[in-house]
């Protein structure tokens, strides 16, 4: 496995908050990652530490095999697009892009010009006066045109409408296809990005709770609908992560894969199987965990309706 980032036992503690709790993971070269989790789960903290904008309390971070802290060679190969990026007071988008061009060695001006046009970004207005969406567009353009070997997008779409977001996704995909690189995309709009990402990294309560290929993640859970008693019998021994009922019918989401014979058995007793979208799965998994607990709740015994 060819990792560009290695994180070992990373912990970050703010005064009374444990933002990252002994986190260990690798990021593989030239893949698009979905870095997913609820607000405050620790995504931004993790990305800040990876780009040396913040410092760990303990643990180790290696980017391209080196400590990124005050490391110009490593840092110049990365680009971190923050949701709430601050710009100099009287800077315009033109200034911001010209500055980015100075510091990112693989900067592509043609791509930047193209994107400016597509996002209809007013180059000469001061950034203070831009709309929220235009502000996001500045970050998105810097992130794409920098072509950094590792690019972090932290909720880059705030204020962007559906059309502009689609533009971002399309441009990301086509540019990535031509110039493969590592991308970490943090997003709440999981359904929107589910097909773009090759791997999912889910963080919850400062811990990594999922780190696998999107393909495997999608196949992880199944939803079954049918007569409540029949469902209960059929699911005996399986790990249930969500349960809803309407009269005698219940709809239950459970973990684990089914082979063809098992599917047939479910169908034979009149149970309907339905796939679980990545968004549903992650919502279910992160709902389960109550704040302050760091293990999965024993959902299979108690259900999750509490």
């Amino acid at each position, binding site marked *: 496995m060819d990792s560009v980032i290695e994180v070992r036992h990373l912990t970050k503690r703010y005064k009374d908050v444990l933002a990252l709790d002994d986190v260990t993971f690798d990021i593989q070269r030239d893949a698009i990652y979905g870095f997913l989790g609820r607000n405050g789960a620790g995504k931004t903290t993790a990305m*800040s530490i990876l*780009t*040396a*904008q*913040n*410092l760990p309390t303990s643990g180790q971070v290696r980017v391209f095999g080196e400590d990124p802290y*005050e*490391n*110009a*060679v490593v*840092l*110049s*190969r*990365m*680009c*971190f*697009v*923050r949701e709430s*990026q*601050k*710009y*100099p*007071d*009287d*800077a315009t988008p033109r*200034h*911001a892009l*010209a*500055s*980015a061009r*100075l*510091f*990112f*060695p*693989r*900067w*592509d001006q043609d791509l930047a010009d193209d994107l400016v046009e597509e996002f209809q970004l007013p180059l000469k207005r001061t950034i203070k006066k831009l709309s929220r969406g235009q502000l996001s567009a500045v*970050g998105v353009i*810097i992130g794409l045109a920098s*072509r*950094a*070997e590792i690019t972090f997008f932290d909720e880059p779409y705030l204020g962007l409408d559906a059309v502009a977001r689609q533009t971002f996704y399309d441009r990301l995909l086509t540019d990535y296809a031509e*110039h493969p690189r590592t991308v970490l995309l943090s997003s709440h709009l999981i359904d929107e990005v589910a097909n773009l990402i090759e791997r999912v990294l889910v963080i919850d309560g400062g811990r990594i709770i999922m780190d696998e290929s999107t393909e495997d993640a999608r196949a992880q859970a199944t939803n079954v609908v049918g007569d409540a008693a029949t469902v209960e019998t059929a699911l005996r021994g399986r790990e249930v992560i969500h349960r809803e009922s309407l009269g005698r019918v219940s709809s239950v989401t459970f973990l684990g894969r089914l082979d063809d014979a098992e599917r047939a058995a479910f169908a034979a007793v009149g149970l309907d199987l339905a796939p679980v979208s990545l968004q549903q799965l992650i919502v279910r998994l992160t709902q389960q965990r109550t704040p302050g607990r760091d293990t999965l709740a024993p959902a299979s015994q108690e259900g999750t309706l509490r």
Partner: protein
Amino acid sequence: MTTLESGSIMRPAAARNRTRNVVRLQFVNTQTFLWVPALVLAGAWVLTILIYWMLEGAGVSGVKTGGGSQAPLWYFLVVGIQAMTLTFPFSQALSLTRREFYLGSLAAAAVSGLGMSLLFTFLGLIEQSTGGYGMNGYFAYLEWVWERGPLAAGLTYFVLTMLFFILGFWSATIYKRYGTAVLTIVLIGIGLALVGLVALVTWRQAWPEVGQWILETGSLGLTLWAILVSALLAIGSYLTLRRMPA
């Protein structure tokens, strides 16, 4: 694309360019680094000259000096604060190290400060040769500062701008890293230390010696001392910035 191929491995020259490019980055704020200081200087100069002119009209013919020329120097405190608060977060988005950002910012301040001190020296030379615009009024030419010639005077102005810049930069760093309370405590602490020093000198009845020392050291000597103080402050400022989260 060729730019893509050359990008992966960074040569040392490129690393030096990054620090140099921070100067260009800071000058994106042309308002902060260029126009406002120029405006402050011009404004202070115009006001001072007007006042001298009125005094002259009122028949005051003695040597006239004023504190107006301090204004642009004080403004460098603001430049220091803005270089930190406005540009540091953006520098992080551009994947700069703190060291590159700091050295580049100092260089940017030096460029601006150099311009300012050249203007001052130039004004001083004019005042020297025209006898204070023909009305014995001096804005930049202060005899005590100029006693070792225009070069020394220019150096004094330059060192002062840098001193103010670093002070502003450091206080902004402390503020951003530790918050208002700590900054206030630090400022009060410095105030107390100065008062303590004054008390000590008074108690030891050493004012004549202190006055003597200042006179003997002269403006150039004091400037050299100011360089030492600035250097110490600059190091302290860097140490504060070095481990600051963005």
